[in-house]
């Protein structure tokens, strides 16, 4: 079995250990004997995103996000097409915002986004930051327990954003906040879930303390071409310990 991974803008969107998210995804596939093909795709590259099984988009600084935002005017429709066809996608922080409908700055100016997710972000006055504990959305919880002995219904990580994101009606939140701010610090939601595409504000990197979600992503990525796959459980003692230590600190 083979999995084709696209790391989008690795040279521009790599702010918070994002390389770690790609590394974790690839290693966990490799440990199960799945052959990993990893492509790094950036500004000048023209690719067919629907040829991939999984696409990762990280976060970046202002200058870099500006460059990406321009490039996405062309790549955006191809990304939407891929996700509509069932390609799995994970976007973090700035990447998550860029895939929404728009971003409204402090001065009211509106920057259009890709529109892959039905959500928008507006500039906030305070920085929402700190360690965060979430309850995974109920429909994802069971699925995230498929590839392990012990079920894990929570997500942990670190959030650091001033943008406040609000979800539209055609998407669902990834999780509900138990501790921390989440999407906007107001409605108790965090992240987004739409088909096989997800977005979240969590760093850490996100997948490092949430191996159950990493496996959910691998299974979703393979599902388009292979249907329901059975992933062999891995020895996650270190990952689960790190998850529990942070959960214990926040509860």
């Amino acid at each position, binding site marked *: 079995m083979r999995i084709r991974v696209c790391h989008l803008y690795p040279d521009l969107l790599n702010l918070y250990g994002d390389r770690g998210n790609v590394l974790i995804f*690839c290693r966990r596939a490799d440990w199960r004997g799945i052959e990993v093909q990893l492509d790094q795709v950036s500004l000048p590259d023209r690719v067919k995103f629907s040829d991939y099984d999984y696409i990762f988009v990280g976060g970046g600084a202002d200058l870099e996000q500006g460059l990406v935002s321009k490039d996405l005017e062309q790549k955006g429709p191809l990304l939407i097409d891929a996700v509509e066809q069932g390609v799995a996608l994970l976007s973090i922080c700035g990447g998550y915002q860029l895939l929404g409908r728009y971003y409204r700055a402090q001065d009211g100016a509106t920057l259009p986004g890709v529109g892959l997710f039905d959500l928008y972000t507006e500039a906030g006055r305070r920085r929402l930051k700190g360690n965060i504990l979430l309850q995974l959305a109920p429909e994802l919880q069971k699925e995230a327990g498929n590839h392990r002995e012990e079920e894990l219904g929570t997500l942990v990580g670190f959030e650091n954003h001033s943008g406040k994101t609000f979800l539209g009606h055609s998407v669902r939140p990834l999780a509900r906040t138990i501790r921390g701010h989440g999407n906007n610090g107001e409605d108790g939601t965090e992240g987004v879930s739409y088909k096989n595409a997800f977005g979240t504000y969590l760093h850490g*990197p996100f997948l*490092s303390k949430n191996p159950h979600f990493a496996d959910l992503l691998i299974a979703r990525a393979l599902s388009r071409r292979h249907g329901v796959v059975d992933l062999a459980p891995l020895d996650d003692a270190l990952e689960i310990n790190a998850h529990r230590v942070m959960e214990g600190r926040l509860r």
Partner: protein
Amino acid sequence: MTAWWRLNSALLISRLVSGTCRLFRYPGTSLPGVIALKICPDAVSLMAPAYDRVIAITGTNGKTTTANLLAHFLRAAGYSVAHNSLGANMLPGVATALFRDRRLRGQSSSRIALLEVDEGSVGKVFAAARPDLVVVTNYFRDQLDRYWELERTTALLREAVARLPRVSLVLNADDPLVAAIGQGQAQDARYFGVLKDIQGSGSENSKKIEAVHGADPEIGSAGPMDGEPAAIAGLVNACETREGRFCQHCGTALTYNYFHFGQLGDYYCSNCGFRRPALDYAAWGLSESELLGMSITVQGRSGSGEALSASKPSAGHRSAISIRQWSASAAAPRQLKLNAPLRGFYNVYNILAATAVAVEMGVGDPVIQSAVQTYKPATGRMQEYTIGGRHCILALIKNPVGANEVLKTLIQTAGSKALVIAINDLAADGRDVSWLWDADFACLAHPDISKIICAGLRAADFAVCLKYAGVPLERIELVPERAASLRRLIAQPADKLYVLATYTNLFDYAKLLGHRGGGTEQNAH
């Protein structure tokens, strides 16, 4: 008069707090300033004019070592220096150092104030202390939860410098983020950098330093990762974190003639012509054996201005002394050969920066050459202890580029090694530990590394990071508690021991190592 009263009350209080701190064996590098500033918020701006020169050193990495080296050079030349040498580098730490230096009669006892300034505090500290010379070491990704992004950090410095009436800059030309600060400023700037020809023709037994990342066969590619799929090997070995790869003026990707590490090197923008400035101080001919050896070419126009006279301390106001103008008169370039008891390529930049300022201040070449040999590293800057006949090195790690340079120096040392790596996430460490995943810990999968003991508040996170970096599970141990982690380290049969710690762990490990070994503790104060 009210200002005088406030300042003197604050001075008394700071003395009282300092004394109390000493009584309880608490370092008190910042607390006296915190409390005294409550009584006299403008204390720093009231005290700073008493100095003939106020020198500020800022940047991400190398601030402490550069400042300590410079203080050592200046003292060797006979100057008295007030200096926040213990790394407390925000406004309260600066205030503490100046209060400590102030006599109760209301004078400073030193002529030069040498201030290490946290890159997030340049606004407050520069406005109060009004430095007339600012040194910028480099800008790397560090503690993003505090400084957000580098663009913001560099903008902070630019604004702080622009508000100073008269200031000279000493800048790292090899870092495009730093060099861009000198452009468009009305102020004088001097630039330092490292040439491509870094290989010295040193003696037979001296080891050549390999500075260019990726060209080192010992790093990354060795060890058990050989059998890994190409995609994963590429991920773990690859991408050194590089900031500022895009032109700060026009956003075009910079082209490099060569890199040293991080984004440091010889670069240019093919679109707008932004490029590494001409070097006034250029290091080359590096060698490393027991000492770190290097040559520095000093361009003729440098160090030829009015030197700070070493005569009687002036009691007057600093503004009465003219800031010396750098003369444009060209003399022949000259060479300065230095040998320093330091390790690691990154220290070349620290020595270079300190030397540049000392030369600009009129310190003679022979003074610098002899002083650099007697320099003792500050706490946790590759500081050596001896424990049961074995060397144990304590090093600070706080961001990916700094950690990579420490790891590279460590891997290049022969023999088997055991490590404690202690990661905390308190405010001074940075609350977000994601940065660990941007450092090249994959080099620790090397067979010479027999054990890595993960300690600190985020020991659990770091163990996961090592696992995915490719370190075999049986070499990873989790012992979060400090003393217990050291006991485990000492129980390892390795030739050499290392403790790498983030900031808030550093001094406690230094204390524990001092008690255990009592050996060759080297401290700069």
